[in-house]
């Protein structure tokens, strides 16, 4: 049963990679830019992990909540930048998107991956975690992962951005961004992003943030040019 599933997955990967590497990748345009904020963002509170000593003792400095993570030069992190319209749907890549539970945190806090791409969830803690994504369009599930149990493998078949939580550790909240095509980025420190090899055409670029919502811009790519787009979010103190 279990083994059979693995075999299928393997075949699927082979097929996918075959498609992916058939012929040279089309050289196209690039959209790059930076996500910033204006105003004063809320001060992130330290997370109180006292209820889970096995995690609490892994940290010397208090861990902060990650709903709003800012970087140098008012840059905004954990923003999903993707093409919401204009690009054709891409086949799921053969590589799995990995979501790790470590020290009672989610790594990464925001995980973007494609429709039908394999999602691998692993628990590196000594405590039992529970993964409970809260999608609206996709099928909802809620599984526990005791320490030392095999990674959970899942797929989502509809494009959607939704929160994921751990029922056992209330502070553990993250985001799954399930996207239609392969042109996406999640901003890190510096808030920079790059969406590469876009064929000529008119695109709608959308930037989504966990607590500041989303905004979109139109971009037209002709040939292999590089367009710069930047997003600015309004920050609220509370």
């Amino acid at each position, binding site marked *: 049963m279990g083994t059979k599933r693995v075999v299928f997955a393997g075949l699927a990967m082979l097929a996918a990679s075959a498609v992916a590497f058939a012929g040279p990748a089309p050289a196209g345009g690039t959209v790059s830019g930076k996500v910033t904020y204006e105003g004063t963002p*809320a001060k992130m*509170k*330290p*997370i*109180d*992990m*006292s*209820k*889970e000593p096995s995690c609490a003792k892994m940290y010397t400095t208090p861990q902060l*909540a*990650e*709903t709003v993570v800012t970087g140098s030069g008012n840059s905004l992190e954990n923003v999903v930048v993707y093409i919401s319209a204009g690009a054709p749907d891409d086949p799921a890549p053969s590589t799995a998107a990995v979501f790790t539970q470590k020290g009672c945190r989610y790594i990464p806090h925001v995980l973007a991956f494609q429709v039908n791409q394999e999602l691998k969830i692993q628990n590196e803690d000594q*405590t*039992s975690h*529970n993964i409970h994504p809260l999608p609206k369009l996709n099928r909802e599930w809620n599984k*526990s992962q005791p320490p030392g149990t095999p990674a959970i493998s899942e797929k989502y078949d509809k494009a959607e951005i939704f*929160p994921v*939580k751990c*029922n*056992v*550790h*209330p*502070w553990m*909240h993250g985001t799954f961004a399930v996207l239609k095509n392969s042109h996406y980025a999640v901003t890190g420190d510096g808030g920079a992003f790059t969406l590469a090899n876009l064929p000529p055409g008119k695109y709608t670029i959308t930037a989504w943030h*966990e*607590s500041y919502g989303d905004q979109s811009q139109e971009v037209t790519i002709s040939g292999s040019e590089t367009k710069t787009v930047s997003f600015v979010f309004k920050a*609220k103190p*509370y």
Partner: protein
Amino acid sequence: MGKLLAVVLIIIAIASAYPIVTHMFPLPEDISTHGHAIDEQLKDTMWEAGVSFVAAQLVLAFFVWSFTGRKEGSPLRNFPGGARVMVIAAFLLVGTEILALGVLGQKAWANVYFTSASPDAVQIQAQAEQFAFYFRYPGADGKFGGIHPDKIDEGNQNYFGLDPANDVDARDDIVSGELVVPVNREVHLMMHAKDVGHSFYVRELRIQQDFVPGLDLSVHFTATKFGKYEIVCTQLCGLGHYNMKAYLNVVSEADFEKWLKDQAAQ
């Protein structure tokens, strides 16, 4: 075979009593002002129950030993006095027993539930949720901000659903995952359940009280010894029930004030 049963019964009686008599399973130390009454009550009951248990087993053993395998002709006898004695005995023994226990127990129970917290007790709100406890201190203004379930945002550490944007009282509320209380000072714990039923249990405090959704209950206690003690949930509340814990930290008055300041600073 009957004699064997008698022997086994005696062994069972002794073996069962042994761990109790030798205190192999001591109660955790009592750090509350009301706990000793409960412990006394427990001890008395242990005596009465223990004695009746052992006695019954021994009598059973003795009768089984002496009356099995008697041959056909051997005379049948009835217990002197017959049923009447038994009934009277039951009423006298158990009757007095339960009266004693009932009356004494009432006192211990009253200590906890018939008294109300003194007005100068430390006011703390406890929220139970799947699967953690969070505690809220009113902060400088001494007022708790209102609770707005729709505002709850755990990812952002807003466990109570406070609304600092519009609610001034809520801005200085201190929320902690640890219950820090000053020693020898009464604490008034207002209990609020966010999702399902939970329970608040601290062995050393001799306090256990359910959280009932939609029903705001409260308990009050005075901790008399420094230290960290475990708070656990004792009402089945879902998959993480076994891991629903927090810690009670009993500190000196000074440390308590300091701790409040540090929290407020964050």
